[in-house]
């Protein structure tokens, strides 16, 4: 067949033709006008001619396509059972992959909610000793902003959880304070009121959900005065729905940014150029910036490094500057997990394709005669392959449509159940990009699962087939079926072993001390607010009252408070200099009531607990700290410099066992505990150990405690169980999805093995009939069939184990306390899958063995 020529030439050719004819006519004596008119008449309708020419070229392939589509559709409709099986399987594969792609799309691909998302950066300081993110002092920020030319804008912000009284309502709000430039960077346009100048800390800008839920969407809310953190503030504006710029939280307080912001307000950073030697305290901020147009990340980094180096920071720790694209900061950690999940979803899709290819192959054997016939009367191979592919495409379109529905449902489930575990996950929707992805995926799938069978079939030797029986599948087809079964099993092993390793990790993370039932421990947070609590004394008094009231409540067995790793210190031993490597000799400090350790079921390793009356200078340390700073030495009786008071020494009275109660996916941090009465408290977490289920007792407990002082809001109420599971939410997210994939894959593979064995059996009905007729026992027949299937199964499992070993190395960073080649997990997975494979192949074998030999022998 010739390729279509350039049809643009046609116009010129026709014009030339008419010119030539006109000249001829003139030569015959016509006037010029008549000559042209005659030429045009003789030529006929030019538009029609052009259309006809075009049709010559278009008609053929278009006709073929339409014919193929019609044929394909007719075939699909003629075998509804197969159509349901194929489309259903495809829907699962395409649906899962599309759902994960929707998440990837929202989390990793969609631009951040800033005016110039690609130029938005995260500004932070880094401790050069251990490369961890440090705190950003307000003075440093002020100097950066004043001196930088590479940054068009720099915005400092901080999260503030404040008690809000807008009588009759009292609640705890998450308020974001942001300095000048924030509104320009986010491009916010209020739907009500006007945005106040950024230095007004006493004007609140409500988010739309606060406006709707707390104030019933009442427009008169603008100008209303409410109490925020004990001080009055005016409501200035209301933001539009969906305003949610991505604002990362402090690294040492993970998850803070996962709580929705209720309102915004201004922030006044300190003036630049302050003498660090003269100040005692610095405000701590978080900061984002916008690169000036045309400035590269490297230029900004270099400039800020220079500015930062030039700052004389006196006693304050030396730090360096980090400028990171905000996108990397927000979703950097999730990136790997999501890529892993996408890979897993593609695995499932590949399994789906292999399985569908099998289904088509097994049916195709029934069509081999038709195909042989067509080829023997001169049907083109290309045309045949194309036709078979059209049929695959029809299946894929069906599967794709169903798959989009599956994806939509899955996305809703994932977002509903797992939104807090991954940044930006809540933004996930099925948008046009996702739909385009699903469409493209369907087409690619059609090619993948359709091409194999199509090629295998088109190589059919016409003569052999027409002579022989339709039930004898060509060896090529049988090998293809086997290969696809091996592939499916191998991929399923990979999915299962990865899910198994993650499961074991999560299992390890959630193993508590045997005496502790985290479902019975209720935790409530209070942070002091208001004029009455400016001094330490009323704060301590409030905590005393809280503990006393809590202990009297029915059902409360133990009550204790902790500041929950509220501060951080360098461990300085008596008579020794400040350690050179501070990061290697540091600890978090919690102020606790003496009962805190026992309440959590912790046991003492050495020494005793803090004394009840709160003797000054008693210090309790955990095993991690003992290992870090007192290797080979009995720490009891050792004296340390207490971090919050100069030159005061504390004595270690006991060593308590480690507990991972904040982030259980990390190793236990070195910890230091002191009595709450001797520290300045900003807030405490009250822990209650209840007789029964903490969830049930929650409302009465909270009500009783709130009565102590209604102006102090109790918040972050949850059980220890919930807290622990929140801290491993990303791991659970991975696990839940991977496990789902693995199970889906298993279902598909079981169907696949069943299908392949059933097909092999049906192709051998005659042979089996002869065997039975000659006296073979059913048991022998079944054994023979299962044994033969097992050779593919064994190959699949072996290949799967090799692939798993490779995959496990990739996921090693997601594992906790589990080796990537954890033998028990791999063995369990292999055994499970082998057992299931045997079961799946036994059923069709049993069916075959009970066949009546007379019928089997008569079968064509």
């Amino acid at each position, binding site marked *: 067949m010739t390729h279509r020529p350039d049809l643009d030439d046609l116009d010129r*050719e026709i014009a*030339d033709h008419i010119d030539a004819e006109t000249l001829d006519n003139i030569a015959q004596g016509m006037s010029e006008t008549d000559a042209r008119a005659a030429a045009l008449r003789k030529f006929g309708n030019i538009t029609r001619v052009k259309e006809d020419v075009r049709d010559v070229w278009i008609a053929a392939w278009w006709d073929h396509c339409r014919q193929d589509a019609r044929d394909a559709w007719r075939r699909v409709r003629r075998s509804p059972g197969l159509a349901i099986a194929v489309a259903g399987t495809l829907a699962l594969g395409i649906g899962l992959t599309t759902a994960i792609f929707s998440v990837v799309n929202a989390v990793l691909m969609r631009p951040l909610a800033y005016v110039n998302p690609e130029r938005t950066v995260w500004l932070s300081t880094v401790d050069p000793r251990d490369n961890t993110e440090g705190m950003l002092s307000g003075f440093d920020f002020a100097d950066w902003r004043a001196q930088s030319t590479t940054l068009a804008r720099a915005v400092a912000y901080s999260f503030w959880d404040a008690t809000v009284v807008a009588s009759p309502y009292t609640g705890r709000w998450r308020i974001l304070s942001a300095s000048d430039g924030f509104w320009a960077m986010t491009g916010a346009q209020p739907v009500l009121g006007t945005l106040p100048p950024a230095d007004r800390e006493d004007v609140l800008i409500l988010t739309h959900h606060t406006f709707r839920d707390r104030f019933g969407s009442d427009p008169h809310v603008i100008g209303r005065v409410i109490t925020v953190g004990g001080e009055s503030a005016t409501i200035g504006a209301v933001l539009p729905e969906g305003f949610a710029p991505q604002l990362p939280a402090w690294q040492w307080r993970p998850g803070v940014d996962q709580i929705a912001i209720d309102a915004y307000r201004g922030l006044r950073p300190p003036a630049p150029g302050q003498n660090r030697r003269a100040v005692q305290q610095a405000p701590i901020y978080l900061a984002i910036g916008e690169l000036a147009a045309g400035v590269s990340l490297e230029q900004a980094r270099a400039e800020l490094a220079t500015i930062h180096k030039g700052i004389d920071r006196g006693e304050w720790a030396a730090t360096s500057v980090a400028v990171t694209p905000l996108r990397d900061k927000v979703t950097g950690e999730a990136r790997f997990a999501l890529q892993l999940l996408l890979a897993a979803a593609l695995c499932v899709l590949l399994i789906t394709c292999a399985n569908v290819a099998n289904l088509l192959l097994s049916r195709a054997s029934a069509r081999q005669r038709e195909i042989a016939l067509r080829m023997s009367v001169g049907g083109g191979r290309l045309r045949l392959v194309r036709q078979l592919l059209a049929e695959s495409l029809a299946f894929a379109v069906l599967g794709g449509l169903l798959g989009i529905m599956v994806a939509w449902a899955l996305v809703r489930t994932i977002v509903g159940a797992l939104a807090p575990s991954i940044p930006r996950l809540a933004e996930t929707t099925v948008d046009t990009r996702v739909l385009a992805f699903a469409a493209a995926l369907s087409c690619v799938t059609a090619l993948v699962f359709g091409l194999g069978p199509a090629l295998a079939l088109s190589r059919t030797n016409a003569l052999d087939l027409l002579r022989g029986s339709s039930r004898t599948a060509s060896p090529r087809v049988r090998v293809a079926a086997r290969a696809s079964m091996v592939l499916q099993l191998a991929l399923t092993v990979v999915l299962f072993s990865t899910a198994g390793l993650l499961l074991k990790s999560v299992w390890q993370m959630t193993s508590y001390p045997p005496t502790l039932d985290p479902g019975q421990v209720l935790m409530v947070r209070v942070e002091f607010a208001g004029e009455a609590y400016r001094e330490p004394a009323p704060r301590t008094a409030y905590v005393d009252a809280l503990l006393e009231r809590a202990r009297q409540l029915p059902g409360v067995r133990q009550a204790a408070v902790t500041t929950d790793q509220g501060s951080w210190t360098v461990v300085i031993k008596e008579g020794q200099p400040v350690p050179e490597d501070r990061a290697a000799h540091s600890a978090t400090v919690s102020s606790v009531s003496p009962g805190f350790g026992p309440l959590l079921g912790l046991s003492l390793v050495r020494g005793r607990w803090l004394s009840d009356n709160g003797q000054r200078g008693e210090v309790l340390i955990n095993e991690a700290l003992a290992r870090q700073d007192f290797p080979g030495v009995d720490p009891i009786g050792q004296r340390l410099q207490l971090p919050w008071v100069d030159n005061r020494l504390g004595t270690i009275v006991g060593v308590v066992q480690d507990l991972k109660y904040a982030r259980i996916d990390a190793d236990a941090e070195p910890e230091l505990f002191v009595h709450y009465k001797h520290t300045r408290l900003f807030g405490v977490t009250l822990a209650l150990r209840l007789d029964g289920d903490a969830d049930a007792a929650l409302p009465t407990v909270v009500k009783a405690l709130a009565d102590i002082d209604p102006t102090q809001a109790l918040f972050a109420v949850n059980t220890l169980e919930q807290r622990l599971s929140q801290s491993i939410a990303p791991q659970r997210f991975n696990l839940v999805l991977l496990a789902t994939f693995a199970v889906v894959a298993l279902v598909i593979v079981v169907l696949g093995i069943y299908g392949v064995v059933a097909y092999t059996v049906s192709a051998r009905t005659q042979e089996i009939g002869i065997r039975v007729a000659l006296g073979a026992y059913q048991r022998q027949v079944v054994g023979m069939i299962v044994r033969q299937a097992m050779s593919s199964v064994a190959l699949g499992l072996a290949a799967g184990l090799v692939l798993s070993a490779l995959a496990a190395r990739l996921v090693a960073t997601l594992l906790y306390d589990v080796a990537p080649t954890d033998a028990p997990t791999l063995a369990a997975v292999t055994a499970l899958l082998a057992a299931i494979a045997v079961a799946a192949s036994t059923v069709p074998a049993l069916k075959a063995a009970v066949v009546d030999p007379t019928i089997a022998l008569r079968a064509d």
Partner: protein
Amino acid sequence: MPTREDRIELLQGTLDLLILRTLRPGPSHGHAIAKAIERSSDAILQVEQGSLYPALHRLLKRGWITAEDGTSENNRRAKFYRLTPLGRKQLAVETSKWETVAAAIARVLHRRERPS
């Protein structure tokens, strides 16, 4: 010059055959082909000249002719059509087919005049 009524409208297949025949001596462009067909049939076979082009493209697609750019007799750029070896073979096939049909028709027509 024959009158309008004497002209015979061409069947599609016939036009294809005539084009192939016209191109046998050598390549030619659209207008020249139309003229040649007219001339060699003493203007009895009348091509509506436009219909020549879809026919040419049909032949192009089947690979019986090829098109190439050239210069016409009055020194203008024109597309020249050339018979391919496949087209030459096809011309032989079509010609003999046509002759068989024509002969058969002639025989049929002739038989009617025989006494029964």
